[in-house]
């Protein structure tokens, strides 16, 4: 696993640098922003509590340091702490420790009797335990109770001191208990704080040689400190994948707490380099606004320890603004304050060097900044420095006026700050024109005013050239070379071509020889819109200006010419409703008008009527109808059958289908054949008789 992650610590450092360098890469003292951040992060829940004891302590302690109002939660928190303190036997030392500290911060009124019980329990724990955390909680709890005005004396301070010291390692780090093999930097901080507590609680002075050994340990511990390039120092564990890994903020906070507490109680001065203390201050301020409550507490508490300690008080040099405008004649302002933003002792700030963006020394004249007592700001006019627009590194040197302060305050000597000087860039002598390829004679040159939108219209063919030139001058009269100088040609079909306009010592000039560019332009003739973009970080009047358009006449594309790239399809085109479709039905067949059909119906009836009239005229009779009852009956049945068949046809037309009709027709047919045969044979026999008679 270690092989797969070759340098986890190095990687982490890199990542931390990225994580802690957002907007405010600048180190600024604690401000109101931190107060509102803390108020937000430690917002009590609806019932006025902050959660568990540890979080409650962190909340009230942070509020205390930042001077925020916490009176509204005092009652709740005191009650919460008192509940724990009332039953010392059943509570963990950790809870007693936090409860005692909450009472200390809030000034809760706790009975002396209650504290007696807690003290007895904590003292018992100190005697028995060999765990660093138990020592830390017990000693811390006792110390907090003592600070509240309770008289506590740790009689066997010497042996407790030895017990804790026994856990230390040769490199200045500590183990959590005698059984654990892992040592940790976080534990070192805890141990130092516990030792400081023991010294404070001791009835007699602790053996000075032992204190000396611990001081030595602290120096060793500071040898393991890690740093960034910009003079920021922090503590972190050696092995980041250890089980008890806390992260750099918690680890550094623990060490700062331990070392400063120990320095307070131990006689003499600790031998720690001042720049490391200053670096720690920069580290905690560099976090900016913390994201979590835990980080906020650690940041604010560590800074408060750094603000008041016997080692060194870091003085932070910071710039309220890092962008200075030559146009508005900004003053270079520098603040030197403690981490909480309170005024520094009398001191001088000198600007010793100005470096250009490529680390070239621009000026190394030593200039002292003037001090504005009212605003606590050191200032300097930029104009006399004769610095042009651009990006610079300014090197400041802080020197304390009174020599005895040298051992109290850590100033770090030289401080480097990166600043931007911005100004208005003069744009003039802008010209645009078309020239012929061979002669180079400029046919049509138009002057441009790049401060306003212009609308030139040019036309050219592939044998001509487009020229564009202009000058950029800084406020101090030098040629200015911005980062962004683009000429964009945009065809009607959205094909864009971008050119960087090259700058020489005197002017910016681009010549587009269309003969060489036809392939690049995909042989697309037509209207091109011209756009010029000039911009730079130091340029206050960066602009993006349409210049007009160019009618370009390019030759026909040969067959193998490259095709223009596909333009992105509009992703919105697939959304939105589609056009409605309705089905076109087949039109019904054409029919004659109803009247015509009825008229023809009448006409078709005429032959039938004529037939009837004809019969009447002929004088039709039915004298041949059989007179005998038998044959008469068969004849009647025969005609009734014919009538039935015809009626069946009518029914077929009206409602019956073919199959029922055929069925009935079958029965009727058989019947008709029978009665028809009888009738017709009778009729024929009668006629034969008559003929033979």
């Amino acid at each position, binding site marked *: 696993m270690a092989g*797969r*992650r070759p340098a986890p610590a190095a990687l982490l450092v890199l990542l931390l640098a990225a994580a*802690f360098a*957002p*907007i*405010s890469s*600048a180190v600024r003292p604690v401000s109101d922003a931190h107060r*509102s*951040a803390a108020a937000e992060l430690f917002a009590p829940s609806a019932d006025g509590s902050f959660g568990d004891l540890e979080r409650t302590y962190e909340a009230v302690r942070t509020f205390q340091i930042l001077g925020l109002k916490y009176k509204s939660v005092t009652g709740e928190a005191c009650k919460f702490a008192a509940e724990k303190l009332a039953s010392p036997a059943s509570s963990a030392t950790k809870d007693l420790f936090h409860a005692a500290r909450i009472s200390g911060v809030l000034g809760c009124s706790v009975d002396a009797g209650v504290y007696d019980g807690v003290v007895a329990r904590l003292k018992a724990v100190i005697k028995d335990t060999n765990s660093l955390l138990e020592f830390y909680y017990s000693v811390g709890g006792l110390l907090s109770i003592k600070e509240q005005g309770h008289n506590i004396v740790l009689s066997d301070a010497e042996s407790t001191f030895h017990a804790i010291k026994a856990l230390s390692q040769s490199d200045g780090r500590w183990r959590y208990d005698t059984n654990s093999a892992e040592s940790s930097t976080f534990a070192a901080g805890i141990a130092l704080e516990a030792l400081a507590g023991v010294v404070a609680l001791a009835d007699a002075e602790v053996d000075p040689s032992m204190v000396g050994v611990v001081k030595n340990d602290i120096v060793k511990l500071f040898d393991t400190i890690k740093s960034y390039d910009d003079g920021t120092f922090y503590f972190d564990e050696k092995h980041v994948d250890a089980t008890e890994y806390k*992260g750099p903020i918690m680890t550094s906070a623990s060490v700062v707490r331990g070392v400063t507490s120990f320095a307070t109680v131990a006689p003499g001065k600790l031998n720690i380099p001042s720049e490391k203390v200053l670096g720690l201050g920069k580290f905690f301020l560099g976090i900016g606004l913390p*994201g*979590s409550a*835990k980080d906020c507490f650690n940041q604010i508490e560590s800074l408060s320890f750094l603000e008041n300690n016997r080692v060194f008080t870091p003085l932070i040099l910071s710039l309220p*603004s*890092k*962008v200075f405008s030559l146009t508005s004649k900004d003053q270079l302002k520098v603040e030197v304050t403690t981490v909480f933003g309170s005024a520094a002792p009398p001191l001088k700030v000198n600007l010793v060097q100005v470096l250009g963006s490529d680390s070239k020394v621009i000026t190394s004249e030593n200039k002292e900044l003037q001090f504005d007592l009212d605003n606590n700001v050191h200032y300097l006019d930029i104009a006399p420095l004769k610095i042009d627009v651009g990006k610079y590194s300014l090197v400041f040197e802080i020197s304390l006026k009174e020599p005895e302060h040298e051992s109290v305050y850590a100033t770090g000597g030289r401080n480097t700050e990166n*600043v931007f000087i911005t100004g208005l860039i003069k744009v003039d002598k802008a010209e645009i024109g078309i020239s012929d390829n061979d002669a180079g004679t400029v046919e049509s040159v138009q002057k441009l005013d790049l401060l306003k939108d212009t609308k030139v219209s040019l036309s050219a063919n592939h044998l001509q050239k487009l020229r564009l030139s202009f000058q950029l001058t800084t406020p101090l009269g030098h040629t200015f070379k911005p*980062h*962004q100088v*683009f000429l*964009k040609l945009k065809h009607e079909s959205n094909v864009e071509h971008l*050119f*960087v306009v090259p700058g020489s010592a005197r002017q910016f000039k681009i010549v587009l020889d269309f003969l060489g560019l036809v392939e690049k332009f995909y042989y697309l003739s037509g209207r091109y819109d011209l756009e010029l973009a000039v911009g730079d*970080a*130091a340029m206050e009047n*960066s*602009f993006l200006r349409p210049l007009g358009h160019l009618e370009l006449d390019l030759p026909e594309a040969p067959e193998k010419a490259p095709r223009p*790239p*596909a*333009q*992105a*399809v509009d992703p*919105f085109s697939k959304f*939105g*409703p589609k056009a*409605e*479709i*309705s*089905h076109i*039905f*087949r039109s019904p067949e054409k*029919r004659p008008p109803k009247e*015509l*059909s*009825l008229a*023809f*119906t009448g006409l*078709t009836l005429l*032959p*039938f009527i004529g*037939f009837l009239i004809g*019969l009447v005229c002929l004088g039709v009779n*039915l*004298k*041949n109808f059989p007179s005998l009852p038998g044959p008469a009956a068969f004849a009647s049945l025969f005609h009734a059958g*014919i*009538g039935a068949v*015809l009626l069946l046809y009518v029914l077929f037309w009206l409602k019956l*289908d073919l199959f029922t009709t055929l069925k009935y027709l079958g029965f009727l047919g058989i019947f008709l054949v029978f009665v028809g045969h009888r009738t017709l044979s009778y*009729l024929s026999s009668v006629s034969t008789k008559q003929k033979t008679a």
Partner: protein
Amino acid sequence: MATPRRVLLLLLALAAAALAGAEEGPRGRRLLVLLDDLAVRSSHSAFFGSLQARGFDLDFRLADDPKLSLHRYGQYLYDGLVLFAPSTPRFGGSVDQNAVLEFIDAGHDVILAADSSASDLIRGIATECGVDFDEDPEAMVIDHINYAVTDVDGDHTLIAGDDLIQSDVILGSKKIEAPVLFRGIGHTANPSNSLVLKVLSASPSAYSANPKTKLASPPSLTGSAISLVSVMQARNNARVLISGSLDLFSNLFSNRFLKSGVQKAGSKKRHERAGNEQFVTETSKWVFHERGHLKAINVKHHKVGETNEPGMYRINDDLEYSVEIYEWSGTSWKPYVADDVQLQFFMMSPYVLKTMSTDKKGLYSTSFKVPDVYGVFQFKVEYQRLGYTGLSFTKQIPVRPYRHNEYERFITSAYPYYTASFSTMGAFFIFSFVYLYHK
């Protein structure tokens, strides 16, 4: 005495829980957050906090955690992925680029944030999602006109973006007034990919280049072609948000504690705070399907005047079709109101395409006449709207021609033929008497 009451209470509680849990959202609530440094957890805690406040269950892991796994026994362990590990060269455990893409293919949602340290792995995932980051590893988006004015930052890489996509469903109905701060790398949407949408675009004066070196050749990405934040909704409705800036999500950028507020260069207006918090909250709601997820239920069709669904229609029948469409609002299914839901009656190509009318309570209906073409048709609803999940459902239905006895029977224009035959029959009947019995 006390026991039955307690049982009753328990039952009531269970019933209440069942009721509360009755509305099941379209997505689960387990998110895996991959970080390349646990410090991001605190520096971006406001974003994570807003996710947790909305009920998501976040599992924070280091991207190179060797125990990392997206699924176990064929089941996905997470419903969404937040990839805040721009610089990680490879993931730990069984997770790799393909695993992430399969995760998306399985219909899960991803938020991916890169920055200038973006690794090939992260770029690869983005490319597969149709987004190409600038290939120059040193490049950042620079805009000398539309940058955010700050006291400490002078190189104009802190972009104040306000060219947002016009879509209430992606960005919420409340307009984002303040500019969205962005510092990071630019990307373009692949022109051949129609699923990617630019949510936050750069201004025409922006370009992507290394701010520390002079430009020799024109930068590959310029102007409003640069996308700062893009989203992709795959065909399976998996949603992916890709941002070129991890800081965009950070507490600092969305923080209200920026002393001086946010001001865009050249504009007089100073905003109390950046639009980032609103932007990331609203877009994350969209990505994790708390908004813009549609479902269609109760697809019904029947003949006009009937209520039963037939197995088949006849040509020229009049029919009614209805469907109910609901949108997930994060807590419940609310009726979806729109006036552009269309129904197709489809066989090889749409024969009828009609916009359905709505009762504003989620019910969409329409009626039309079945075309006079028989065959196997489909009722087809294909609903693709910006930001919404696609709805696509079909129902097959055969259409038959007229039966032989369903044609028109007594046609006036045929009356001459009828009378002709019947008068002939009548004449035959009379003639049979005359012929047989005349003397």
